[in-house]
């Protein structure tokens, strides 16, 4: 309680402060530009790319936009990853929202039904380039038949293998669940685990779990059965000691640290770990996630969105369209180390030659978005709790899957 009150109080104070300091200039420039007719429009832009190594790419993109899209200025503001969703929500209360934003693709669930995002359907149809995107990333921007965003960049999960450990154990990179279980067991030795993955009680853990559910041939609506299959597969890994029970507390960053420190022979992780792995003293390769009934991986990455509250939606769309031109998009993605969501760019840029990036790009064709509607957060929480209960031996896979399925059905059925 006191927390909520503090936040509100803080929000108001911070909002007033921000208005006095930063937004004042935005408003004045908007005012002067807008009223003189055809003058410069200032677009505010929010994202969560706060790390230093992202800044050159964004500085260049903003400069590109300002010099090539007529009459536009960009005011970019960054927030910590965990804060952007909240900030947009709070912004909706206080009326302080940006014109455009780059949001996590999973946020389309909560934002999609909120009426906060501008409907881009008409503009996208006129633009006519939707066919150039991979199916998963594009589907992730569609909510109730409307296009509410366009992909900014995409990523997905794959399996990293420590080649030296695999060679010395005489194991080939696994391609099926059975091979994965077998390899993980053979690679486990001393304080080294065969496999590391994140099963933390947040969306990060669910992001890593969903591929197993999909590979088992199911989805959230068949969690009682296929969820149990996926859960018992992971439960076996833990029971055999191939996967540490401690993974219920690991973020994906923790998982990568284990892999780099050679405490795990294989890890499930995304392409954003590539820069640190390339600097590490370690031989590794990346392969597709092992399949069971089918191949699947989980789609990550970000989407561009335009806010419904924006007074400059035309200009905002012009900016978004400009960023999708290959001549702009490729250097931006290369500088970020991210992958394109567009099939037509597969043979340009670093991902055309780098084998690891190429592998991740190839997996985008089986990457599924977490597109389940406004109550996805409840379903996601149920999945995370079920996984944690099974891996910590608090519940059997079938029982955990069954009780999670009840919560999932309630959440997704009440849309």
């Amino acid at each position, binding site marked *: 309680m006191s927390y*909520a009150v503090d936040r509100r109080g803080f929000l108001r104070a911070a909002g007033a402060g921000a208005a006095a300091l930063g937004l004042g200039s935005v408003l004045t420039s908007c005012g002067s530009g807008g009223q003189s007719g055809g003058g410069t429009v200032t677009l505010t832009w929010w994202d969560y790319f706060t790390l230093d190594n992202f800044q050159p790419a964004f500085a260049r993109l903003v400069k590109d936009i300002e010099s090539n899209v007529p009459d536009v200025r960009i005011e970019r503001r960054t927030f910590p990853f965990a804060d952007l969703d909240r900030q947009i929500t709070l912004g909706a209360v206080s009326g302080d929202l940006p014109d455009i934003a780059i949001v996590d693709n999973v946020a389309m669930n909560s934002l999609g039904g909120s009426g906060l995002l501008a409907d881009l359907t008409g503009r996208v149809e006129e633009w006519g380039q939707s066919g150039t995107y991979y199916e998963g990333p594009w589907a992730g921007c569609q909510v109730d038949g409307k296009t509410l965003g366009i992909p900014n960049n995409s990523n997905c999960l794959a399996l990293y293998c420590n080649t030296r450990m695999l060679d010395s154990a005489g194991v080939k990179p696994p391609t099926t669940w059975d091979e994965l279980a077998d390899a993980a067991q053979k690679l486990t030795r001393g304080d080294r685990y065969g496999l590391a993955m994140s099963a933390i009680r947040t969306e990060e853990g669910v992001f890593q779990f969903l591929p197993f559910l999909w590979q088992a041939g199911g989805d959230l609506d068949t969690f009682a059965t296929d969820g149990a299959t996926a859960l018992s597969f992971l439960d076996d890994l833990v029971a055999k000691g191939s996967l540490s029970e401690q993974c219920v507390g690991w973020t994906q960053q923790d998982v990568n640290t284990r892999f780099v420190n050679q405490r795990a022979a294989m890890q499930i992780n995304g392409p954003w770990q590539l820069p640190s792995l390339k600097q590490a003293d370690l031989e590794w390769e990346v392969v597709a996630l092992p399949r069971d009934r089918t191949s699947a991986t989980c789609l990550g990455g970000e989407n561009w969105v335009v806010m419904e509250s924006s007074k400059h939606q035309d200009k905002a769309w012009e900016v978004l369209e400009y960023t999708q031109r290959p001549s702009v998009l490729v250097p931006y993605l290369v500088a970020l180390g991210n992958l394109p969501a567009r099939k037509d760019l597969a043979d340009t840029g670093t991902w055309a030659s780098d084998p690891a990036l190429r592998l991740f790009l190839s997996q985008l064709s089986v990457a599924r978005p977490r597109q389940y509607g406004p109550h996805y957060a409840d379903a996601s929480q149920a999945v995370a709790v079920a996984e944690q209960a099974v891996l910590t031996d608090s519940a059997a896979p079938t029982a955990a899957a069954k009780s999670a399925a009840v919560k999932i059905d309630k959440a997704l059925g009440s849309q």
Partner: protein
Amino acid sequence: MGKHHGKRQGGRHTRRHPSSPSSRRRRAGYLFSLPGLAFLGLFLAYPLLYNVWTSVHDVDLGTLLGGASRFNGLANYRATVADPDFWHAVRLSIVFTLASLLFQFVIGFALALLFARPFPLNGLLRSLLLVAWLLPPVVSGTLFRWMLDGESGAYNALLRATGLGALSHDWLTDPSTSLAGVVFANVWVGVPFNMLLLLVGLHTIDPELHEAAAIDGASVWQRFRWITLPLMRPVSVTVLLLGLVYTFKVFDIIFVMTGGGPVDATSVLSLYVYEIFFRFFRFGEGAAAGLLLLLVPLLAGGLYVHRLRREGEAA
């Protein structure tokens, strides 16, 4: 303005001549308290009332923007009370609070007795202990998260080094010990506060009482039991009430250490409310649960103020 003021005062003079200076003083008093009242109104009463408003409306992400949220009476409260996770959180909060208070108080009392005696470096050690209380909870939470880590944590390393390796454990990732882990960290944070207040209390006890008792042949234990403890009662109750208020709403240290997990082993009420608000975006229900969370500290705070007033009257 000035004229008007004078006229009104004149009117008063004719009616209530003798009380005029004091009433003027009282009016000035109200004037001086205006900034404080405005501050309280703006930053306490308004958000609180807004929260009450939210708790009886159907507010979620969808209805937030349009302002189309409907009044739904006690539906949010009913939904909260019907949620088994809420009651689970209530139980956890009670266990967390009672365990924290017990250990904080006992250890704090023992340390206060120690520091009440003069010895070399007393002042320095006492100030060093306070660091635990001064550290931001995010920092202490992170510290304990690392120290209690199953694989590379300091506590397990210590246990192994002292031949007690069999006791080493995945403290925070085992649902049966993670609550104990966060209580442990919270006790460490709370001990200095308890010690400091209890130390002040110990200093108010007249040393002559102890001397007289010693002359009469009372043992150390007897003096503690029959002099220190009874005289420390008022201070102890105050310390425990304040501790209750602080501990019941602890959020940051748990959030950093376990995020409410594993499974839901450390999802105390404050984390429950946070998740309703910022993960599920059900603002109406969150506000209702939040107000229910407020009840306990409010009750404790009321008791505390009541006691203060009674002590004031007694003095």
